[in-house]
């Protein structure tokens, strides 16, 4: 990533009002330099302690909290003029949220955008990890609604912090045990809890189970931002990330055996189910539209 020297930015921001201003009158990447610096410090700490939730002063942005402000603040803090941005929402490049975030970042940075995973240097995403394997030159920024994986079992923030500090995760395991007793398997769909670097239980954001193994020993850097909850956490490259599972009840991904994408014919990607209103016919298409389009071409 190219991150410009912050003093240069401050100079740029304090140029006389008579001169024409770039980026619609805002600082490069919208946030002021002090805000970006604070977020970068939080990111460095998050990378240093994989899976640990670092508090940060979440800023106001021109989108509502809960619509990706955490991810957006991370993107705006790390983006440089040479970066290539891709934004996806549930795998789709063309959804309203993804398009608006892409337009906004582009207007305050002038960076180029893409729908091709391999071309992008920064990918901001909600609820999916792209199908194509990412490389060490890429960063995936995930928008996180609820960063606390233990919230399901403990409502108190003080108590969850104690549980993380003491690695006291028995209640999370008990929750999984009870799930098995009730349903004969672990019924958690998205937000499947993972153990990062054998230390912290982490919420991988509401990605499907299909995407969870992609976090393990990945070449790319994963950054997680929760704007509403004011938390940042990270998985650095080549970090051990394992879904919670028992010795005799294993983690299972969604099963798409026998189903293929109607558009590209892929049988090895996460598929969305579509039901034709008129005929009632069920069909499947790739959730990752960029991947699907590329295969169709």
């Amino acid at each position, binding site marked *: 990533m190219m991150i410009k020297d912050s003093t240069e930015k401050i100079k740029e921001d304090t140029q006389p009002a008579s001169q024409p201003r770039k980026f619609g009158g805002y600082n490069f990447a919208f946030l002021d330099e002090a805000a970006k610096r604070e977020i970068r410090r939080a990111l460095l700490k998050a990378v240093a302690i994989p899976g640990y939730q670092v508090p940060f002063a979440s800023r106001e942005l021109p989108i509502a909290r809960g619509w990706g402000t955490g991810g957006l603040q991370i993107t705006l803090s790390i983006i440089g003029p040479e970066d290539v941005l891709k934004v996806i929402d549930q795998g789709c490049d063309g959804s309203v949220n993804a398009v608006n975030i892409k337009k906004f970042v582009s207007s305050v940075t002038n960076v180029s955008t893409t729908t091709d995973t391999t071309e992008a240097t920064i990918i901001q995403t909600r609820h999916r990890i792209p199908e194509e394997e990412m490389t060490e030159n890429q960063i995936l920024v995930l928008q996180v609604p609820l960063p606390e994986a233990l919230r399901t079992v403990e409502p108190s923030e003080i108590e969850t912090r104690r549980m993380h500090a003491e*690695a006291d995760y028995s209640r999370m*395991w*008990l929750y999984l*045990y*009870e799930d098995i*007793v009730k349903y004969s398997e672990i019924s958690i769909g998205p937000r499947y809890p993972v153990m990062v670097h054998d230390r912290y239980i982490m919420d991988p954001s509401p990605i499907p189970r299909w995407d969870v193994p992609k976090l393990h020993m990945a070449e790319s850097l994963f950054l997680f931002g929760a704007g509403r909850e004011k938390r940042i956490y990270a998985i650095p490259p080549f970090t051990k990330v394992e879904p919670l599972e*028992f*010795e*005799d*009840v294993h983690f299972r991904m969604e099963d798409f055996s026998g189903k293929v994408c109607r558009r590209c014919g892929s049988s090895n990607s996460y598929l969305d189910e579509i039901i034709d209103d008129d005929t009632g016919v069920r069909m499947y298409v790739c959730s990752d539209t960029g991947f699907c389009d590329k295969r169709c071409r």
Partner: protein
Amino acid sequence: MISSLLNVKGLTKIFGKGCSRCHESTGPAFETNVCSHCGSVVACSDISFELYPGEILGIVGESGSGKSTIVKLLHFDWDATSGEMHLTEQSSPSDAGDGGDKGIQCGFSNKWFSGFGAGLFELNGSNLLALSPYHKRQMRNFLMGVVYQNPYLGLKMDVSAGGNIAERLIMANWRNVESMRSRASELLLKTEIPVERMDEPPRNFSGGMQQRVQIAKALSNKPRILFLDEVTTGLDVSVQARVLDLIANLQRELHLSVIVVSHDLGVIRLLTQRTLVMKYGRIVEVGLTDQILEDPQHPYTQILVSSQL
């Protein structure tokens, strides 16, 4: 000479800011445990006793005498104002046999802790009341079991009975569902709970059954020390008798050291070998249970014994 398992010295708990005269202005001599100088409540003060391996020690006294406070302090539920608690390392025949049992062992040497990530700390000679919260939790998980008067304190009512037991096993790094369920069935069978009700939450159970699930949960990690805090209070007489029989049998079978807190002298007579009599946060008499009940020396103990129905 048998060495003690647990050695408690000068255990004190004061609710309130406390002052230098709290100790001298409260107790049986003043017939109060509220300090007349600062208004603090001295729940227990300068309590010292020893618990021997395989012994059942009773603590008896009226309401507010500090019996349950002692259990809560020794089980690390509350922090003591001052005092010390020491463990003496014992070699027990059960140490050798349970080595491969998923990391759960009955001894408590440093070796015993090493498998649980508790870090290296010396148990022998260290004051357990001064341990970090993390180490206290480890001690509670692997060394102690507790059965409260109120099952709502000891059980999670929205989790199945088997799950309540599994929680303690999970704390000891068990990660095999089938093994956990088989251990839970074994314990429920031992505590006379129908195994087919293992997946029901304890809120569906009667009071006596809930107490027995608590006992099963407390025993799941094969503790060395068991605390029983008014376990039979609120149960009808026939259920009381069954619970007491169960405790006595399990104690013999597992060679547990037990501290029984009760205001019921019948329970104390039936279960314990030695008894501490408490009043206003102080121990007023200590002795063999038979001796205490047949030949009480302290005036308060005499009243207590003579007031039995």
